[in-house]
């Protein structure tokens, strides 16, 4: 496998650090997950079969921790910290999601581990980062998104701004950390030295939204919540979510070419040639509600699946807003083997998503049930004793 031979110690809970670890594990790295005696927070987070909490039956934990080893190390206990340091000594990469201040107190920060092990790549994941005025604040992905200017632009005008769904900020933090780690490993091949990486969820989202916002703020459009539209339609209209016969669809027809394809596919309504509906900038800026009413009228008798088929036939961007159930049963995902079936002990077979890409000559690690809490503690201690 691609990262065979790489040893990673993951000292972080919930989503961000574990997603980073999972990306590396899937490519063959040995990921030793250090868990507190009560287990990773994701073990308590669920979802659980029947809604009954059980640290060995958390769905989120299973997805994030397949392919890893679980070693219990209590950082509140000097022996646990010593064990963590001993494992770091043999590792290439240390990933952590714990607060800087805590790790400093515990003698597990970069200053200590990096000085002792110059080849170590030390990656800290946190909400606000290990520098800057907010470094010691509490908060998670929800707060990262608020600070980054993302939340501000989601939802309806005059109503509360909305969060991103299902810990997306944490996933993005984890993915960025995984990239930075590979860059540091690449650099280490030449320099022989590891380094410290500081990934802040808030900064990741600030980058994403900030770059996206340039498409608005420099063109007389506000970056603000505008309901089911991109604000001001991001210039030319339409870019929005529209109801159809049995659900909602996203339609993007911001060029005359796509708009004409859409209108033709919908049977060329009598108003199609009216100059009022040819100026797409004015449509978005001055009378989007009027255009919405016309578009809705065209869509109302079509099902999502019909529209999706028509859009592909005529070549304009449209897709149904699908549910998770649709995704799990989706023929495209099935064709590509995107879901792997994994037998979870005491639960049965479930489908878990693999990595979103495939390599031509290297297979990723097959997905398997996640480790039980502390399943590998004994083996890890034996290994350390053996020297």
């Amino acid at each position, binding site marked *: 496998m691609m990262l065979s031979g790489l040893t990673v110690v993951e000292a972080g809970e919930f989503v961000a650090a574990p997603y980073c670890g999972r990306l590396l594990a899937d490519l063959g790295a040995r990921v030793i997950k250090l868990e507190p005696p009560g287990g990773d927070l994701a073990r308590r987070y669920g979802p659980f079969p029947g809604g009954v909490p059980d640290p060995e039956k958390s769905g989120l934990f299973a*997805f994030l921790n397949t392919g890893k080893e679980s070693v219990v190390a209590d950082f509140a206990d000097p022996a646990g910290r010593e064990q963590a340091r001993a494992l770091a000594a043999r590792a290439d990469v240390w990933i952590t999601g714990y607060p800087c201040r805590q790790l400093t107190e515990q003698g597990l920060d970069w200053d200590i581990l990096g000085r002792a092990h110059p080849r170590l790549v030390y990656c800290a994941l946190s909400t606000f980062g290990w520098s800057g005025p907010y470094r010691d*604040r*509490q908060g998670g992905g929800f707060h990262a998104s*608020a600070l980054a200017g993302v939340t501000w632009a989601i939802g309806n005008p005059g109503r509360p701004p909305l*969060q991103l769904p299902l810990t997306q900020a944490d996933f993005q933090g984890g993915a960025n950390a995984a990239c930075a780690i590979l860059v540091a490993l690449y650099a280490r091949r030449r320099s022989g030295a590891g380094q410290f990486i500081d*990934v802040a969820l808030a*900064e990741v989202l600030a980058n994403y*939204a900030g770059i996206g916002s340039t498409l608005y703020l*420099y063109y007389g459009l506000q970056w603000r919540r505008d309901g089911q539209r991109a604000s001001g339609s991001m210039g030319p209209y339409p870019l929005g979510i529209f109801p159809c016969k049995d659900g909602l669809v996203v339609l993007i027809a911001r060029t005359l070419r796509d708009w004409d394809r859409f209108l033709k596919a919908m049977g060329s309504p009598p108003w199609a040639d009216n100059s009022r509906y040819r100026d797409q900038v004015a449509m978005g800026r001055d009378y989007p509600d009027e255009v919405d009413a016309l578009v809705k009228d065209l869509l109302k008798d079509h099902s999502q699946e019909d529209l999706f088929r028509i859009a592909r036939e005529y070549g304009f961007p449209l897709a149904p807003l699908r549910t998770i159930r649709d995704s799990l049963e989706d023929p495209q995902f099935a064709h590509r083997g995107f879901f792997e079936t994994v037998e979870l002990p005491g639960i049965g077979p479930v489908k878990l998503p693999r990595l979103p890409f495939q390599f031509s*000559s290297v297979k990723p690690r097959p997905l398997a049930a996640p480790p039980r809490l502390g399943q590998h503690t004994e083996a890890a201690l034996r290994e350390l004793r053996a020297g």
Partner: protein
Amino acid sequence: MLPLQGLRVLDLGWVWAGPMAVCYLADLGAEVIKLEHTERLDNSRLRGAPIINGKKFSIPGKSIELGPFYHNSNRHKLSARLNLKHPKGAELFRALTAKSDVVLENFTPGTMEDLGLDYPALARLKPDLVMISLSTAGQTGPIADLRGYAPVISAYSGMEALVGYEGEPPTGMLNFGLNDSSSGVHALFAMMAALLYREETGQGQYIDMSQMEVGAAPLAEAMLEYQFNGTVMQSIGNRHRLYCPHGAFPCAGEDRWIAVSVEHDDHWQALRTALGDPEWTRDDSCRTAAGRLASRSRLETELTRWTATQSREAAVEQLVAAGVPATPVLSMEEQFVDPHFAARQTRQQTVHPLLGEEMLYRLPWQMSATSISIRGSAPQLGEHDDYVYGDILGLDIETIRDLQQQKIIY
């Protein structure tokens, strides 16, 4: 020395995810050559003249060079023109590939093959080539031909349906092209893995990435809820299924909000302290998460009653001081000047030869031994034609001018 110095990358990326992914390679020192055809430019250039300090910044004939979005996703690259559809253009591309390490493309699947430039063809010229295709749905499958931008992709993957107010139809998050940024970053991860593996083994690699899969994987929580319990998760606004209170609460003034969450019992005690232990927080049942969730509406109403009387800054300060997770909900203009992002240099200043000073977002990490600072802006169309075809391919200047005349280098 930057870590990727010595690597050469050919960028056929379009719009956002593709160009961004290799832009990061350029940040890290790779020589990235953005190849465009004058009659089919990267559409991130086609936004017209930007408005800077309230004025349209217009230079006749140069509008394609001026977009801040184009600069953010193409900085540190070189630009050369090339008409791939001309047989001689494709030949030039093959010659460049033989002298490059990485090729990125995000055309509709099949396009590269039609041009005779698919991975098997290119790998014959450069056996250790790393090539990545990042299309909407992947190179194979019943909807591999799907055209789409980020919102179309994340609608299909199930993400958009999870954004909205509780009990109402989804609003989606159409402003925010999460799937583009996320695809760029996942593509970077895949490319870096392939490059490391190449260093170890000498082997090249073809990477077939699906932007739709990028969007779907982080929805695993909902996928497992459905498989375990048959429940299709719906958006619950700013609420949280385990934590309470959890939401965006209005402050004094217009459209001022703070994001507050109580994620464990200590946070609840901290909240009580911050607010001076008011009557409504003294209910013993609220000491546990289950109790707080049972009183959710009441707690939200009471907390709102308090936040609505506070300035946003005062509310944040008071809550943070007590140890409650709380942040202002910033607008983008506020993000630009926020002291935390400023201290971390989330954006850095550079100079564009036509636009002047501008701020670009650097890679969103900090590294102690690798510089990832912004060193300049994006190239102008064809700025490096002579370098790419002269210095790299060894064509003489007459030949290059001739190919430009024939609209092949064009």
